[in-house]
Structure formats: structure tokens, C-alpha cells
């Protein structure tokens, strides 16, 4: 599935999206923490279909998934 990256995370990954295969949100995080250097040390949130998800949740591959570094609006 396609994962959207923003801000500091896009900078660290040197990409604004990545293609990742994962069956759940926690599996996705583990996979991304391997692929993006320094992600594990960052404070970030995972959004599934534009809503932040904290718990582990199955993924079908059709969701819109995004990695969000700290917000800075305003």
C-alpha cells in the first residue's frame, strides 16, 4: 500500500510516499521504522483514512495511510 509522508518524516525518507506491504498498523510501523532512518526516535502519528489511529488495527491495503510528524499550524 501507498504511505504518505510529511514534513520532517518526508525529509528523513527523502520521499513524499513509500510503497509498503503490511497486514496491520503495528506491522506497518515496524516496517517503516526499518526503512526510514531515525523514525523510531521521532514523535509521530499514523493516520488511516485521515483519522489518527493509536491501537493496532488490520489493514486491507485499500486504506489511505499517512505518517505525521508533530503539527505546527497556526
Amino acid at each position, binding site marked *: 500500500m501507498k504511505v*504518505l509522508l*510529511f*514534513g*520532517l518524516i518526508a*525529509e528523513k525518507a527523502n520521499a513524499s510516499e513509500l510503497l509498503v506491504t503490511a497486514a496491520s498498523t503495528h506491522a506497518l510501523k515496524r516496517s517503516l521504522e526499518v526503512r526510514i532512518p531515525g523514525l523510531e526516535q521521532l*514523535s509521530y502519528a499514523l*493516520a488511516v483514512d*485521515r*483519522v489518527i489511529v493509536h491501537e493496532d488495527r488490520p489493514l486491507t491495503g485499500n486504506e489511505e495511510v*499517512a505518517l*505525521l*510528524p*508533530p*503539527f*505546527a*499550524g*497556526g
Partner: protein
Amino acid sequence: MSDAKPHRKRDIFVEGAIPPSFIGESIAKHASQTAIGGHEIFLGQVRADRIDGRTVEAIEYTAYRDMANEQMTIIREEAFARWPEITCLHVHHSLGTIRAGELCFMVFASAPHRQEAREAVTFVTDEVKKRLPIFGKEILGDGDHHWKANP
């Protein structure tokens, strides 16, 4: 007033700084709404903060635009539910490079009485900062940068 309807899909983002004249024009549009007694406006201006001895010259804003607009719709509905007297609520946020001294954020509420307008602006300003996926890269004088994070 279309802006009193909380359910319409809208985009809060504008490319570049918000021109001060835009605020004046927004205010002028309310002259026909004679049930309004007060307008409360918050404007965010990019501040030339010092970071490790270097000065912030600009902030480059990006956003997860679809999610931010969806979150804004929810915040707007919450505001209209809590302060039903509000007649208008306008929110705009900049994308792109905004230099120190320029405006990047506007929250504008109108109501028959000042308390509702003020409380709505305070609530919406705080919630936008907390809940909207907007990212800010502070451009420092020496060419380096720093990623801004709201508290």
C-alpha cells in the same frame, strides 16, 4: 451566509501569506448582516524567533490537505454546536513560504454578542493548532532549517 453552514466542504488553505487587505475585505462583507454585534479575529503572524543564535526568516508550510480540511469540518461543527449564536466562522491558513512579519493564519467569528464570538475564536484557534496536520519548516538565517512543533 454560506459560511454559517457547518456541513459544506471547503478548503481553508491559501497559497502564500494572507494579505492584510483580505482581512479588511472579509470584514466589509458582513455589513449587510445586521444581527451581528461583534466580530472577533485572531491573526497568526510569522515571528522572527531566535533558535540557537540564528533567526527565523520564514516558515515553509505544508499540510496533509484532505485530512486537515476534514478535521476543520469537525472543529467547525463542534464550534457551531457549542456556540449556536455564531453567524459566521472563517478560517484560513497559508501554505508555502511565509516570511517573518507576514500573516499565515486567520480565525474570524461573528455573533450577536462578543462573548460567543470570542470563545469560538479561542476554541477554533487552539483546536486548529492541536488537530490539523500542518507542518512548518523554519528557515534560519544561515540556510539551515528547524522543524516547528506546537506544544
